[in-house]
């Protein structure tokens, strides 16, 4: 049976106007019931509805509450630091290679704590434009409000990140990949193989036997919203495996792809979140230099245990 996340089912928006589209409560309940998820059914049954449709304003408020709680969880897992660890050497290399303008686009960013934290720290340099792209207009508005309140130099758009007119130097995402069906991953990564794009860093939950238990503990302890607690565990259950991600990421044919500190190559508990990275061949050496000893955590598709990204890994331009 499919593992469903409630948040994927309760919101729908007109792609052109961003206006709410009606979402039938019974339809959502039926899908969750068909998936055998009675806990989720109870959560949705308690949600306010009128005329058989979920109340849009209540759904909006719920999304903001859940994503704000999720932000704190991501901060405790130090997600912005994890991105900065990889983006700093990548951006430096792209800058030296004369790529520009430098632009980082966060795909499916939610209220985008990562982009705002990167903007607040200034760790990537003032010449790097930071953009968050998200289809949910309420989350875009919330991210914009928060950034304006703190006068952060980043912006957010209600768009599909991969169809933005401005190409990204690097695409990033956090907790997005498990929302995509395995069959569409290759298309997702392939679409980032644009001439102006130097690479991508997509963090997601590492699929492991411990992941659902770890997710349960984390979300139970740190989140209040039943939807957030439910979807957190569902996310861990539906996370894509390392091989699936590497295989799909290889669709970006102009890039070399790696996982960084995946569970098989690190303490499995420390690898609760691990990224799949795509890099133009000319930037790999700079990434390795920037990471120093941690470059041993880069694991390519054909890795057999020896240091990846090293000799024989095709680090030339």
């Amino acid at each position, binding site marked *: 049976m499919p593992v469903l996340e409630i948040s994927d089912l309760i919101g729908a928006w007109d792609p052109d106007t961003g206006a709410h589209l009606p979402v039938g409560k019974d339809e959502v309940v039926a899908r969750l019931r068909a998936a055998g998820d009675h806990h989720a059914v109870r959560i949705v049954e308690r949600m306010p509805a009128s005329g058989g449709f979920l109340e849009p304003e209540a759904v909006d*408020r719920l999304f*903001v509450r859940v994503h704000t*709680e999720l932000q704190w969880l991501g901060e405790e897992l130090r997600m912005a630091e994890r991105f900065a660890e990889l983006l700093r050497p990548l951006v430096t290399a792209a800058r030296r290679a004369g790529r520009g303008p430098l632009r980082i686009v966060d795909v499916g960013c939610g209220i985008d704590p990562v982009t705002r934290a990167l903007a607040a720290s200034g760790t990537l340099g003032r010449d790097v434009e930071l953009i968050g792209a998200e289809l949910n207009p309420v989350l875009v508005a*919330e991210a914009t409000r928060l950034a304006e309140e*703190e006068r952060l130099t980043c912006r957010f758009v209600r768009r599909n990140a991969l169809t933005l007119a401005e190409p990204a130097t690097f695409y990033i995402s956090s907790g997005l990949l498990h929302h995509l069906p395995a069959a569409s991953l290759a298309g997702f990564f392939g679409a980032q193989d644009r001439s102006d794009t130097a690479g991508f860093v997509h963090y997601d939950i590492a699929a492991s036997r411990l992941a659902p238990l770890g997710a349960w*503990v*984390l979300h139970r*302890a*740190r989140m209040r919203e039943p939807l957030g607690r439910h979807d957190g565990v569902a996310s861990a259950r539906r996370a894509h495996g390392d091989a699936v991600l590497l295989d799909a990421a290889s669709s970006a044919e102009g890039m070399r792809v790696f996982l960084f500190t995946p569970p098989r190559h690190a303490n499995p508990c420390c690898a609760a979140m691990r990224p799949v990275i795509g890099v133009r061949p000319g930037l790999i050496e700079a990434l390795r230099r920037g990471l120093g000893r941690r470059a041993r955590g880069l694991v390519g598709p054909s890795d057999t245990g020896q240091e990846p990204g090293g000799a024989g890994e095709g680090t030339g331009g």
Partner: protein
Amino acid sequence: MTWIPAQEVTVPVALAGLTVADGAFAGLRAATGRNGRIRRRAYIVTAAGRGAAVALAGLAATAVVSLGDLGRRHQALTEAGARTLAVVAPYAALAVLSLGAYLLLPMREGALMVVVGLGPLILVRPIVVAGAVVAACLGTRDPVIWAAAGTAAAGVLTVEPLVRRRWYREPL
């Protein structure tokens, strides 16, 4: 000559200190996930202060319940407090260790402490408080000590929901 405070002093002081510190962390948890800003030091300090203040109110309620006829119960109250400490002190030590590891260890190892340390400790906290009540009441049939233990436990466990309901219902 070194002056070592008697148990009659150390036990209540330690319990009060732990209660206020626990209240501050409960205030923090109540405020968790309600402010989406990146820079929020003042917000965190305020939340901890609110938690500590509510915990102090709980302490005051416990004092009102337990301090009647103090002269006759002094020894029994101290012993009950020492039994309570025997349960909560190891928990507090683990919490301090986990927090220290979270703050001091490298990024990934530090984040691991949220999963294996701080998270589980938050989940078992009500059980530890219940165990402390049972320990306090062991070997005594004095209803005042039972009432004091119950009041203290209720005070500790209600800080987070009270602070949340009062100040942090919705995101700011």
